[in-house]
């Protein structure tokens, strides 16, 4: 008896599947390499665009997109969370731009530009502000650097100030400057008229100290600390977007949360 069938000689014909996979791999690497180049190109393109106010303009556009989205969602005037007073911790002084020299609270005046019905700038004393309803709130101050601290603030609502002294005032923006105009911030109308936006004269139960912006500062807990301008000199109601110290240095103009 012989073997039923002789073993077939090993074919050295290339494995079809193996070959097909090699082709697919080559094609996939070409496509992938092309896509990677495109991605890298996009990255390089952004990185080499001219700056708009301290940040590459495509990114600045992105920040504006975020702002528009936030402002659309902000219409409901949502309140920043408030806290029990035992959560209050000391607040460090983190900025002194615009606070050179000293200010005497008894002679200090705030200049207000653009109030409806006033053809010339008007001035207000601290007593004028303190005559408005006093509002106290304990909120979390969030620095754009990432730290935060709970603070009790007291002052008058900016919206109450407007209601009392310029009820027809309805500009798109509010700008604030220190008396020496070295620090300045801008707020959109909704943020400025937010019930927690205060012209603030007390911090943690005591009058503001110089380094914290005596005699009057802005407190607006829907924004980062950079918008909380200390030592208000001029308050301007305007339809032109006001200059903003940190927005000129690459930060988001809106800086809201």
């Amino acid at each position, binding site marked *: 008896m012989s073997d*039923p*069938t002789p*073993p077939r000689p090993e074919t050295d014909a290339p*494995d079809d*599947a*193996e070959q*097909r*996979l090699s082709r*697919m*791999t080559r*094609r*996939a*690497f070409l496509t*992938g390499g092309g*896509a990677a180049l495109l*991605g890298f190109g996009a*990255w390089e393109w952004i990185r080499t665009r001219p700056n708009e106010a*301290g*940040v*590459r303009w*495509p*990114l*600045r556009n*992105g*920040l504006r*997109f*975020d702002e528009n989205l*936030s402002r659309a*969602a*902000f219409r409901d005037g*949502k*309140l*920043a*969370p408030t806290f029990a007073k035992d959560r209050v911790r000391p607040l460090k002084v983190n900025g002194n731009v615009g606070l050179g020299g000293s200010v005497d609270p008894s002679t200090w005046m705030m200049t207000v530009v653009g109030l409806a019905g006033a053809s010339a700038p008007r001035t207000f004393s601290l007593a004028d502000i303190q005559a408005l309803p006093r509002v106290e709130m304990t909120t*979390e101050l*969030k*620095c*754009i*650097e*990432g*730290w*935060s601290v709970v603070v009790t603030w007291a002052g008058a609502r900016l919206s109450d100030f407007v209601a009392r002294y310029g009820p027809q005032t309805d500009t798109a923006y509010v700008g604030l400057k220190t008396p020496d105009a070295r620090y300045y911030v801008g707020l959109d109308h909704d943020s400025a008229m937010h019930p927690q936006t205060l012209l603030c004269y007390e911090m943690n139960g005591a009058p503001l100290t110089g380094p914290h912006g005596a005699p009057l500062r802005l407190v607006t*807990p*829907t924004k980062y600390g950079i918008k909380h301008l200390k030592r208000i000199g001029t308050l301007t109601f305007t339809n032109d977007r006001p200059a903003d110290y*940190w927005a000129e*240095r*690459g*930060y*988001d103009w809106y800086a*809201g*949360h």
Partner: protein
Amino acid sequence: MSRLVKKHPRAVRWMHWINFPLLSIMIWSGLLIYWSYPAYRLGWGDTTVFKFFPTSFFQALSVPHRLAEGMAWHFVFMWLFAINGVLYVGYTIVSGEWRDLVPTRASFKDAILVTLHDLHLRKEAPPCEGKYNAAQRLAYFAIIVMGAGSLLTGLAIWRPTQASTFTTLLGGYQAARIEHFLLTIGYVAFFVVHVAQVIRAGWNNFRSMVTGYELVRTREEKPR
């Protein structure tokens, strides 16, 4: 002989690879942001075992004094990261791929056995339940949950007033920040293990994430 077995759909492969540069940009820009308040460390009391991060680390990556730049990249590319993630999850649900990803009751125990096997502490590995072994299943599922976690904790930090419900739910602003940071550390840990395992698994496995196909040896027919 061998044949080609379809392993990863095209959409999954694209989204997987696109996620890599996106997440890299998010981690890098996050680092630029974190630098301005680098508060975290491993340690207790006055003892610090490890500081996140040593000055030399920040300097080596030229991180210092780039907060504004970091925020701009982070708050623009977060959209792309989110869109890619949402599309991925949507695709896995619609295509049924989720069946290979969602852990089963056995996954947890088996994942330990797989890990012991991979560490050469155990001879036998439990059988794969589908495309992935139990450890992969857990890891890949976890990384998707972590991605969602990053979006939620990120939203809580980005808009702590408008999303104050989330922020409070996550334990407050600073807690959300820590959670966001820990998730990032988790990604880096995942990346290290993932790359090591992919290298260990070899070319054929890697190629399946590129082409979609894996080469499977078919058993030689026995002579009669």
